């Protein structure tokens, strides 16, 4: 019987032994990619592509695979998972951002950690403002519930409120914002230069309470002078022996301001300190919240495809191992044999 070169190639590519080679390669590269700096985890793409091609070829040429419903459903589901992983990698976005209370989300402040080649970045169109932040703790810094309230502009143009929790994200235009364990204090500073020009902005301190012993940061004034800022509470912010809540605080504090090569000046809220080129006034102490941002439009479909594959396995198990399956399989084999004889 005549077989085209394509079919002959597909039959070779459909080899089960090639499947085993692909699986072995994937396992080895996954372990090496995680454990060794010399091998990138991206190398797992090679066996994944090989396995996908092997699977497509098998579906084209392997009659057993096509005629046994369970096997067919499983392998089609698996192929869909492969395809959707590929699409997700191409279209995904992953990043993080810190937003201070009272401030708006700034797309320019987003740190991008993954950006797919086909990702159409629409972060510029997202508008929300950070409102109240509350994070509950048990003794020994055991974090409990996070409640981060944001105000956002809905499709109707009106402002709405949403509370982002540990299990509830905030989704806008396909982008999911998740509250992270990363949050801390933000010092609202008012700057006035020698010409009288004013500016106000927030300086975020290190994550709290993770770095509660080191609430120090450096900041460069609009006039170009570097200053070290340290938050110094008059009394401990929390008692580690009892439950407490991280929230906008009324605990009295002072800010130790140390311009480069100058002595430290301690200022209270509302007080100002003279630095090169202008005056710095401590306006308020607020909180900032760290958000993780992801964009994975194909994720729900990946779950559907994966569940379809598992359903295929269950069907195959039922047809092969449950009572009555042996008889049914014998009949199917006989029909297959007759079909092959006619061909």
């Amino acid at each position, binding site marked *: 019987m005549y077989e085209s070169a394509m079919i002959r190639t597909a039959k070779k590519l459909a080899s089960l032994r090639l499947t085993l080679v692909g699986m*072995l390669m994937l*396992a080895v590269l*996954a*372990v090496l990619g995680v454990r060794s700096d010399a091998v990138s985890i991206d190398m797992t793409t090679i066996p994944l592509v090989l396995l996908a091609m092997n699977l497509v070829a098998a579906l084209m040429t392997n009659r057993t695979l096509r005629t046994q419903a369970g096997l067919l459903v499983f392998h089609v589901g698996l192929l869909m998972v492969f395809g959707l992983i590929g699409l997700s990698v191409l279209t995904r976005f992953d990043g993080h951002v810190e937003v201070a209370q009272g401030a708006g989300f700034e797309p320019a402040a987003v740190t991008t950690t993954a950006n797919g080649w086909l990702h159409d970045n629409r972060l510029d169109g997202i508008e929300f403002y950070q409102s109240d932040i509350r994070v509950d703790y*048990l003794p020994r810094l055991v*974090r409990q519930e996070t409640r981060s309230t944001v105000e956002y502009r809905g499709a109707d143009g009106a402002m709405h409120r949403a509370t982002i929790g540990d299990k509830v994200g905030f989704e806008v235009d396909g982008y999911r914002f998740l509250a992270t*364990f990363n949050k801390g204090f933000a010092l609202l500073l008012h700057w006035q230069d020698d010409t009288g020009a004013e500016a106000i902005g927030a300086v975020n301190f290190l994550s709290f309470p993770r770095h509660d012993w080191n609430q120090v940061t450096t900041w460069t004034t609009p006039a170009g002078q570097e200053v070290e800022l340290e938050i110094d509470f008059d009394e401990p912010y929390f008692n580690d022996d009892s439950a407490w809540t991280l929230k906008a605080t009324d605990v009295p504090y002072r800010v130790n301001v140390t311009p480069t090569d100058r002595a430290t000046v301690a200022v209270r809220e509302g007080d100002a300190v003279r630095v090169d080129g202008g005056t710095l006034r401590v306006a308020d102490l607020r909180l900032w919240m760290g958000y993780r941002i992801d964009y994975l439009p194909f994720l729900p479909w990946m779950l559907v495809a994966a569940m379809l594959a*598992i359903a295929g396995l269950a069907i195959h198990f039922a047809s092969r191992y449950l009572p009555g399956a042996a008889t049914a399989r014998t009949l199917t084999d006989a029909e297959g044999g007759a079909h092959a004889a006619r061909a």
Partner: protein
Amino acid sequence: MQPALERELIVSGVVLLALATLVEVTALVRRRPSFVVTAACFAGATGFFLAAIVGRWVRESQGPFLTLYDILLSNGFSLALLLLLITSLSAPVRATLLVASPLLLMMGIWLLDAPATAVPLPATFDNYWLWAHVVSGKIFLGFCLAATGIAVAMLLRGLIKAPRASYLVPEPERAEQALWALFFIAFICHSFMLVAGSVWAHSAWGKYWSWDPLETWTLVTWLILGGVLHARVAFKKMPAGLGHALVVAAFAVAFLTFFGVPFFSIAPHKGLM
């Protein structure tokens, strides 16, 4: 429940598993059926471990999900229960108890040595997908152990003399069929565990897959399980013993993934502050 009582319950369960091991070995030497006694020991161990889990759960206000102690205790319970159910329902599978009893005994002794201090479950971890992930993982391990026990018994059968070999696996063809059926169920459960784990991870720490050591070794285990099933079809003339050895190897990797990898890394599965 006080920790001292919890420990007494666990010790009682471990003693019963030691008795089950002794009964299984003695039965093989004397070639006398032992299933009722072994099953009673397993039922008792299951009950003691369940009581310890419930007491600990009430005291700590959280399930046994995080620490090595929690994982060993909950798996001691689930494996004993699953093996009891599987062997009660299918006689050809009972040879697996010769292997499962000492393995569960070893896990019980390990449990007695593990630090019992509870680690609070991070708030983001607690959702329905965690349950789906954990339960499917435990069912996977139970079925995989049952298949492995038969595989080891079949391998031993080829090594020992005829009368005892016949006692060990009286119906080799049915045992062989049961072995692969159990292994296939294990593969299905592992697949579901992997998917449920991804959904849970996406909710718990924001990424459905992050190549952490536990995720990576779970994928490797899945590939090995799938590879063993494919190898049976790809190499039809493969000696049965090699197939059994592959099943044992797959279980060994799964066991190390369950009880080794999470506790030698600072993977996200242990949570973040």
